[in-house]
């Protein structure tokens, strides 16, 4: 089942800073996703003098989710700073800074609060390299806490990935685990292309025991989180953990589910995905965002086009409802959970299946 936190629990969780979650001296340590992201920013700031981190409340406060906790104190106000409350201004000035040789990593406080910056993102950030025949590279990272499941009130839980993924020139990535959050953010900051970095806020406090390293799968590759033979279950961001739970539940019913964490929504890793689906013959894509014209439509279309003769059933989508994001007490009915995923798996034409 999907874990739904009450608004009060969310507030408590939000007050916990990564720094306050003591790291035991043993190695490897247990780390939350928020702390992993904090470490990625710190390590990037330390490794590259061109990196600057800015946005609303990212300085003294350390961000409303504490992802930038302690960075202003450690690196100074020339490297980590608060801005006026204006998202277009944040992205627009980041573009100018990148033109002048800096590597800006900016924060949009919440998914739906990023929309004022949409023109700067789609008309300029995404296009300037192309407009100038490659002369003007913009290595900007826009961090956006996204998605629901935290009992957030209105405008705090949108899944806005399809808007960005539809824009050529942008890379769109989202981590599913703390270790991958560290890796992907380091890779995003090193990337010469603009990167929309979507942070699944419901997983900020998820923990993993892992050594944090930028090494591993490259920024544009999907990874198999759980190998399986019968069906490919595709997820990203906050839904990766949900998909893994569903796979465990399916195993009890003798369905061997392979879970793929997309990591990179744009570009799409056709190779990893088609290899899996050609093997299993069945696929389900899951996301929180509304289904209509959603990211899952692209995944279903690509897999159908490329794996048609291997498919035993239509590629199914398990998504949020086609409704504006619901209020906290209703979001549990909107968000895909293990039950809906298991239902979709059950509808995959198993009559002729020989396991």
């Amino acid at each position: 089942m999907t874990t739904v936190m009450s608004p009060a629990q969310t507030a408590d969780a939000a007050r916990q800073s990564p720094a306050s979650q003591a790291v035991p001296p043993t190695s490897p340590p247990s780390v939350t996703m928020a702390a992993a992201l904090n470490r990625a920013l710190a390590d990037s700031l330390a490794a590259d003098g061109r990196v600057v981190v800015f946005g609303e409340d990212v300085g003294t406060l350390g961000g409303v989710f504490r992802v930038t906790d302690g960075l202003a104190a450690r690196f100074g106000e020339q490297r980590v700073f608060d801005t006026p409350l204006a998202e277009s201004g944040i992205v627009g000035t980041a573009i100018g800074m990148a033109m002048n040789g800096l590597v800006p990593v900016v924060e949009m406080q919440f998914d739906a609060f990023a929309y004022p910056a949409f023109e700067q993102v789609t008309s300029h950030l995404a296009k300037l390299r192309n407009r100038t025949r490659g002369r003007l590279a913009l290595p900007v990272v826009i961090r956006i806490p996204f998605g629901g499941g935290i009992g957030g009130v209105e405008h705090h839980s949108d899944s806005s990935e399809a808007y960005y993924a539809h824009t050529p020139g942008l890379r769109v990535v989202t981590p599913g685990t703390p270790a991958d959050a560290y890796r992907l953010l380091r890779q995003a900051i090193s990337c010469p292309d603009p990167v929309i970095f979507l942070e699944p806020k419901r997983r900020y406090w998820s923990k993993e025991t892992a050594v944090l390293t930028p090494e591993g799968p490259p920024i544009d590759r999907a990874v198999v989180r759980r190998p399986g033979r019968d069906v490919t279950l595709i997820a990203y961001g906050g839904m990766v953990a949900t998909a893994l739970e569903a796979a465990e539940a399916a195993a009890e019913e003798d369905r061997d589910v392979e879970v793929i964490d997309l990591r990179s929504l744009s570009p799409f890793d056709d190779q990893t995905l088609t290899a899996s689906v050609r093997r299993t013959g069945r696929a389900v894509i899951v996301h929180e965002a509304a289904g209509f014209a959603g990211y899952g439509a692209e995944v279903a279309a690509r897999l159908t086009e490329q794996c048609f003769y291997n498919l035993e059933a239509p590629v199914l989508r398990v998504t949020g409802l086609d409704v504006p994001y619901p209020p906290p007490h209703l979001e549990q009915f909107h968000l895909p959970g293990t039950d809906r995923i298991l239902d979709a798996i059950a509808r995959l034409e198993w009559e002729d299946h020989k396991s």
Partner: protein
Amino acid sequence: MTTLAYPRETANADSLLPSAKPLQLIDQDGLPGENPGGLALPTPDVLRELHRRMVLGRRFDSEATALTKQGRLAVYPSSRGQDACQVGAVLALRDQDWLFPTYRDSVALLTRGLPAEKALTLLRGDWHCGYDPYEYRVAPQCTPLATNTLHAVGLAYAARLKKQDQVALALLGDGATSEGDTHEALNFAAVWKAPVVFLIQNNGYAISVPLAKQTAAPTLAAKGIGYGVPSLLIDGNDAAAVYAAVRASIERAADGAGPTLIEAVTYRIEAHTNADDATRYRTDAEVSAWLERDPIARLAAYLKTKNLLDDAAAGRLAAEAEQLAGELRDRMNTDVSVDPAELFEHVYAQPTAALERQRAALLAELQGLAEQEEHPR
């Protein structure tokens, strides 16, 4: 009792306000302006260069309009009438400074040293930008309007963070002052003390919408005070005043004193573009009145009075302008050569696998078409 105030840097409000009347160094008859304010008259050499560049720019502009009528440009938004703003502002820039122009600023690009045909690539339509921004320190021309103001602030603030002596000049029009980005840019620039100069070329119309429907502010320059940005209201058809105001603002920014907002009052003599019919929203009498205030004629009159321009020099300049126009004509009167494969080159630092497949598919499609033409069924 403590006073109810949050700590912040405060400026003397009066010092931020523009003058009631536009500052002017040379009036429309070529005589010393009545309201010079604190502006310093440029040296004779600068005045002669302002005149020369305006004459060249005007000829370039009329040639571009002609080329558009011949189908050589997709569209051309003329700079005619705004010559003093574009030439005065760009000549005031130092080599290391950056220019953030809009689509109407072709003459500004030319004055910054771009070859004429590179300044027109966007409007010709073979690519979105025809020059390397780093070669000329000129950003790609801004078409959505106002978005470039934020880029200018970011670039300027980066220069400050890196301790580089570099100022950014953002060009915008009266219409763009209504866009949110302009307000965010003024605010960010002021808070960050970014070395930026905002130059509004107020030509009275946003395509067809007159200033009265654009703003209820007493002047556009008056908007600066709300952000803590000092502002200047100047005669935008007086190249000497534009040069002096922009130069002083650049020096102020370079000294670490932050941004300046300049409103230059001017007029767009031609329609918005060749696709526009200006008679639907303005009268011939209004245009005629502005023709009387022509920026080139007034500076020429002043220079002649001061014995800084004679008929021989004017003749040589006219010949130089004709040569520029002829060269532009020759370069533009050729068929555009484009490479469809280039569509995929610059989307990302490296083309993605999907883009590589699309490139191969497009090239195969083109080859198929070519073969069909060679061997029709």
